[in-house]
């Protein structure tokens, strides 16, 4: 039954994935997401699932690979440096076509950086740090409800495409509480049901076919064919998974582009500017890959600047420029290191930018 509850982001994320059908969690403690393994260690045994604390992030992603290769619906959470360690595994999972749901509650970098919120994982998650031609869909929700709704869908999306799928949150969302409607719990495949529901998965050759899950293809023509096959899937994902929210573009003098928590800040800045007589709009990419380039076609002729509001040195600018195609100057308002701008700061900086471009 659906119910409205007040939950801390990290716990709501975990609950949503369980309700979405994932029953196996593998993880290694890292701030600011350690409530997730804690929650999973309490909940999963009660709900027909299994929790395993890995020896490292390398262990975690490979346990999830084994779980997915065996037909289980797995879930891993981590934060930026932990996600970096998992990149080898992500490339492997994509090559071997194994589904898993990943959650990155991101923090500051480079290196160990800080434990404060950051968005400097943009390139890491949208471009991928692993080797080879592969893609991972990435969603960046802006509220706990949206995060819950997306995470609830992720195990199904991962299964549908036989590919990892990632949600990018930040430490602020993980710690925040917001009323949230929890969806109804989906059925999770039992060990017995896997042999018929996922005949490609390892469940024993007694089922009538022998399953082999692998990423190695030594013959060039075979690997080429496989990569082409992967990219047919990615082309389908580009069509089916693109998500974006566009607000107040009509007649806008300035258009903000922001995702996650920063999109909420940009929305408030938009309201404040409106009150001061400056018409502002917002493009909020919800899927970071596939990136909603098409939404940028809606930027009106009235726009004098497009401004990325980011907790990074402007990692999203490349994608924004691909969308804007040089029609309007693209600018950046940012803080890094765990520092957060206020909406007022965004308003002031926006006015300055508008003076420059006018």
């Amino acid at each position, binding site marked *: 039954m659906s119910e409205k509850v007040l939950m801390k982001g990290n716990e709501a994320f975990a609950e949503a994935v369980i309700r979405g059908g994932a029953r196996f969690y593998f993880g290694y403690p890292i701030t600011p997401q350690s409530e997730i393994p804690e929650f999973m260690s309490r909940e999963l045994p009660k709900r027909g699932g299994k929790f395993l604390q890995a020896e490292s992030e390398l262990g975690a992603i490979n346990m999830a690979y084994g779980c997915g290769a065996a037909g289980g619906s797995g879930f891993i959470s981590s934060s930026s440096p932990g996600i970096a360690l998992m990149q080898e595994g992500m490339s492997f999972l994509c090559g071997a076509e194994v589904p898993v749901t990943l959650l990155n509650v991101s923090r500051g970098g480079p290196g160990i950086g800080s434990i404060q919120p950051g968005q400097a994982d943009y390139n890491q998650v949208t471009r991928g740090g692993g080797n080879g031609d592969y893609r991972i869909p990435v969603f960046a929700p802006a509220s706990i409800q949206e995060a819950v709704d997306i995470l609830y869908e992720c195990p199904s999306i991962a299964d549908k495409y036989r590919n990892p799928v990632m949600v990018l949150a930040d430490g602020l969302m993980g710690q925040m509480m917001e009323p949230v409607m929890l969806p109804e719990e989906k059925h999770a495949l039992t060990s017995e049901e896997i042999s018929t529901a996922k005949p490609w998965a390892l469940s*024993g050759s007694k089922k009538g076919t022998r399953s082999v899950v692998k990423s190695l293809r030594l013959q060039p023509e075979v690997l080429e064919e496989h990569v082409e096959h992967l990219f047919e899937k990615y082309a389908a994902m580009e069509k089916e998974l693109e998500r974006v929210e566009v607000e107040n573009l009509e007649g806008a003098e300035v258009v903000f582009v922001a995702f996650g928590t920063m999109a909420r800040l940009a929305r408030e800045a938009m309201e404040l500017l409106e009150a001061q007589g400056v018409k502002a709009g917002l493009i909020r990419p919800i899927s970071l890959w596939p990136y909603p380039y098409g939404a940028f076609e809606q930027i009106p002729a009235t726009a004098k600047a497009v401004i990325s509001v980011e907790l990074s040195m402007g990692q999203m600018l490349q994608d924004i420029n691909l969308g804007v195609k040089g029609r309007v100057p693209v600018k950046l308002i940012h803080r890094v290191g765990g520092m957060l701008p206020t909406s007022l700061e965004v308003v002031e900086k926006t006015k300055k930018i508008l003076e420059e471009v006018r």
Partner: protein
Amino acid sequence: MKPVFTVTEGMLPVSTSYCPGCTHGVAHRIIMETLDEMGLLGDTLGVAPIGCSVVAHQFMNVDMCEAAHGRAPAVASGIRRVHPDKVVFTYQGDGDLASIGMGEIVHAAARGEKFTTFFINNGIYGMTGGQMAPTTLIGQRSTTCVDGRTREQAGMPLKICELLATLDGPAYIERVALNSPAHIRAAKKAVRKAFEYQLAGKGFTFIEMLSICPTNWGLTPPKAMQWLEENMMAYYPLGVYRDVEKEAQ
């Protein structure tokens, strides 16, 4: 007429890609024969490593997946969570298990994961062309220690059975050799014991198989067998390093 020998259904009817004289074929066969004899082929899930035997799934007639380098024990731990009633094993070489995958194997063993690991120790990196392995003996030549491994430069070879036997998680640990009919018969008994312990839910089981690599050792197969006997067995003594059944008695 009653056949005196049949090929096990556990091995697919194809030629292996291993070099002439390599003992991977022997290791594959005794594992698969044992599963066949125990009637477990249809219920077994195997994990192949990175190394020469990355292609083990082309020869072993059971459901299998590949693992990233060294991660087979983590992969098998994940598989085990989904299928608590199947037979699960990893098959790993010395570079995979004893070097890059040391964290995964130690933790899987310490957790007492209910799967079996077959550790093929030939003291060298085969697939990449004969570099020094963590189990390369002092004085043994490789392409990254052309005058022989020295303690000063590369430290001492790792004794994995002895190391894992310090843990409380494993249920059965034995080191066997694949260099003579008698040793191979003993090895097959060890394989069976490991699977029996796994089926009985006793805990983690580990069989190290001293193996040869004639190509990268630069020896003929018979000479390699002899080299194993004289050198490897001296540093890596055969025997049972852990048996929870025996210890309980």
